[in-house]
């Protein structure tokens, strides 16, 4: 990266060294990173510290750490070490150019598709992978749906989302945890705008119409769960005429509380409905991309339901909402004691997830919480806090070296390790930069 070179000349050597590492020692996942300010996230910062990584895992953190002979040493003098960031909602790997359907594998046809697995179509060669990585993101949640944005009208369960490491030769290598949640577009009452109705020339829909559709969908969803339960019983009973069904098979972990529903719910009413549904069905849910909390924040706290927030940098829903009503959503959740993390719910801006956390911090979220919301909180919400999300002994060495706070846009990401392996920060974007900067 050109910028790196002239901003921090001593790093040139380090970059080259890392490049060599990636090329020659693909299996080399042990390294000593020294002379850095360590930001473990889950404990106090350590100035001039070192982190030892052996076989991809963090084994030592401290001021004086010695490495066994033969282990590569990375002197990060003046730099900061953070855990790799997590984008907890994206379509990375499944969509290349959002406006060209041929390049998009989102929103499968059908209302209930719990059996679909995001990871199996995750394209390890997607240009987005290195681009997102270059912003310090080591893990993304890849969702199989868009909440209906891609003509996925009517879809309720879009499939299973998977946590993906942004490094690996195949999707199998990249999958950090498969099937972590079911992507659900929860039925909601959404009056179509009059302008759109007029525009499309469709007859005006009354509230009663919309409400009826909503109830119908809710009933469909309940029925599907009911069917799944009957399936589970039949399977347990093991009758001779039991026939396996991939759809219901995929529902079993949900019914057992092992797989959460990732429920997209924008408004207060939808959130309440989802919580009520989860209560009734005795299942785990995560609320995704809310835009209006109202009294639901307390409800979420009460039910210990976590939230994956969408872009803080969004417009208020209504003209007379406070100008910062979306900016302060995270701090409202924080005040209510609800656990949350951030996602971007897209591909093109997936690399900017940290800026949404920072914007929340500009509007009353404590900066430490902002950092947690793109690291450890996401790991906890998706049940991988034993592996990633902080710099702790025993965890995977998903690490980034920066010249400052990774939530600041002006900060450069200087190096990255995923499971201890040095990862290139090159991308189509840097290659184009290098190539065309050299045009005479």
């Amino acid at each position, binding site marked *: 990266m*050109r910028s790196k070179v002239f901003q921090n000349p001593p790093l040139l050597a380090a970059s080259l060294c890392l490049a060599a590492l990636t090329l020659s020692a693909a299996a080399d996942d042990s390294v000593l990173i020294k002379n850095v300010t360590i930001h473990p996230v889950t404990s106090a910062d350590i100035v001039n510290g070192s982190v030892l990584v052996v076989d991809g895992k963090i084994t030592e953190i401290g001021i004086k750490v010695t490495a066994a002979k033969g282990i590569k040493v990375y002197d990060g003098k003046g730099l900061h070490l953070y855990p790799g960031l997590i984008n907890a909602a994206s379509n990375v790997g499944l969509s290349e150019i959002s406006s060209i359907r041929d390049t998009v594998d989102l929103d499968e046809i059908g209302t209930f598709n719990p059996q679909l697995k995001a990871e199996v179509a995750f394209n390890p060669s997607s240009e*987005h992978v290195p*681009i997102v990585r270059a912003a310090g993101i080591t893990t993304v949640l890849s969702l199989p749906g868009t909440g209906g944005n891609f003509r996925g009208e009517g879809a309720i369960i879009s499939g299973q989302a998977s946590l993906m490491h942004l490094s690996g030769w195949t999707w199998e290598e990249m999958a950090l945890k498969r099937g972590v949640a079911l992507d659900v*577009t929860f039925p909601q009452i959404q009056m179509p705008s009059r302008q759109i109705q007029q525009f499309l020339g469709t007859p005006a829909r009354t509230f009663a119409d919309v409400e009826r559709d909503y109830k119908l969908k809710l009933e469909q969803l309940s029925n599907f769960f009911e069917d799944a339960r009957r399936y589970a019983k039949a399977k347990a009973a093991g009758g001779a005429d039991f026939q396996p069904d991939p759809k219901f098979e995929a529902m079993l972990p949900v019914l057992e509380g092992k797989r959460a529903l990732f429920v997209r719910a924008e408004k207060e009413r939808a959130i309440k409905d989802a919580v009520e549904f989860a209560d009734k069905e005795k299942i785990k849910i995560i609320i995704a991309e809310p835009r209006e909390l109202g009294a639901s924040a307390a409800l979420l706290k009460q039910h210990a339901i976590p939230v994956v927030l969408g872009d803080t*940098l969004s417009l208020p829903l209504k003209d007379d909402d406070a100008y910062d009503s979306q900016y302060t959503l995270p701090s409202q959740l924080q005040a209510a004691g609800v656990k949350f993390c951030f996602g971007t719910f897209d591909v093109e801006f997936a690399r900017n997830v940290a800026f949404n956390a920072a914007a929340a911090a500009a509007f009353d979220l404590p900066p430490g919480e902002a950092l947690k919301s793109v690291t450890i909180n996401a790991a906890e919400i998706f049940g991988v806090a034993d592996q990633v999300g902080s710099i702790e002994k025993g965890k995977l060495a998903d690490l980034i070296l920066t010249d400052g706070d990774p939530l600041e846009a002006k900060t450069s990401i200087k190096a990255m390790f995923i499971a201890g392996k040095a990862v290139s920060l090159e991308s189509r974007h840097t290659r*184009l930069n290098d190539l065309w900067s050299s045009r005479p």
Partner: protein
Amino acid sequence: MRLVKSTLCLLVACAALQGESILIRNATVLTVSKGTIEKGSVLVVDGKITAVGRNISAPAGATVIDGTGKFLSPGLIDCHSHTAVEGGVNEGSLSDTSMVNIRDVLDPLDINIYRALAGGLTVSNVLHGSANAIGGQTIVIKLRWGKRAKDLIFEGATPGIKFALGENPKRQGYPSDLFSGGQAAERRYPGTRLGVEDEIREDFTQAKIYQAKWKLYNEQVAKGEHPIPPRKDLRLEPLVEVLEGKRYVHAHSYRADEILALIRTADEMGFKIRTFQHVLEGYKVAKEIAAHGAGASTFSDWYGYKYEVIDATPYNAAIMTRKGVVVSLNSDSDELQRHLNWDAAKTIRYGGMTEDQALAMVTLNPAKQLGIDDKVGSIEVGKSGDLVLYDKHPLSNYSRVLKVWIDGTQYFDRDQDLKDRVQLAARKKELLDKEKAAEDAAKRQNGPGGRGSGGKPTGPPEKKPDTPNPGPPKPELKEAAR
């Protein structure tokens, strides 16, 4: 909220009467053009900056703002906005709609003006969408929230015209059925980049013929002849103004080929491109853009949303800057325009720009591109008192805008906004309660099932057959804008 808010803003505005002066002191002053002044002060008198420096004493009667620990920047400028446009940003019907004018449809009550102001934006170049090769006449506004449409217009700023190249203007040559309610949409020339290039040349060819016609007419009249006057053509008039250098061309573009092609058309026809907008492949032809004297108004880091941005790179702004192009970062978005300072910070990450270079991309550079850098864009004596006060450095993603002035008049104040909210909520409740009371009274009067004010029968909804689920409403239909 708009109306009450605008009233409140007017009250605030009244506080800064003509002749009043404001001294912001002891702040970190980011002048953009002349470096940073720690513990600096800025004096604004009669709307203009009259002093910038360390030791400035307040004239009698001046409002003094303590900027201790705070940061002051020039008002931010967005060279590509669609805010405050009422009734559609695209006149998408024809390939050349240069007769339409944003000035006609400015909506000073668009709440996005206020929201942008709350993010430090003070000037916007308001443009059409990009549905056609020539979109129409554009206008530069100051975000004087609470004022009338005519008072938003930036006095003395050269008006523009929007061109568009590439995928958007050619889309209707091979239209999808998305916007036509399932009917086969009508095809419109051009359907290729070749055609877009030709369209613009044809339009200027006509403009020249038109120009000549009027010249002839005026000559004939001067000679005492009695010719029938030519028809005044609102479509060709602005193109003549472009030829005469009285109107700036802002050209939506992505690919290097189309950028270069337009430069050559302009050379051939004898006009200038003032700015290329978006210009995501500008870095490939930065040399040619700089040589033409055009500016580049680009996105900080947009990519991946359509095929023609396949070679987008966030290093674009930095490369073009190094190659001598005046570069600005634009929003093209009601949302993004609220934090252009944060966007500017990305050029430090992607391309190693200095803080001054980064800030200039959302202040002085767009001012240069719009030909208003003698009035705004930096904190200098003689320029307008368009200023933004932040709690932290504006290039920090943790910074928040506290106050915004335009021409020395305070148009945004965070503390005031917080107070106003309480008032607005109370007013809203009052109105809702009143409406509810009236409704209840009507219900009582008419009795159950009677013809209430709503007049809707209260019986069960009409039974409809259980048709397959029609699904949620279709996605918002967005007009091609970016």
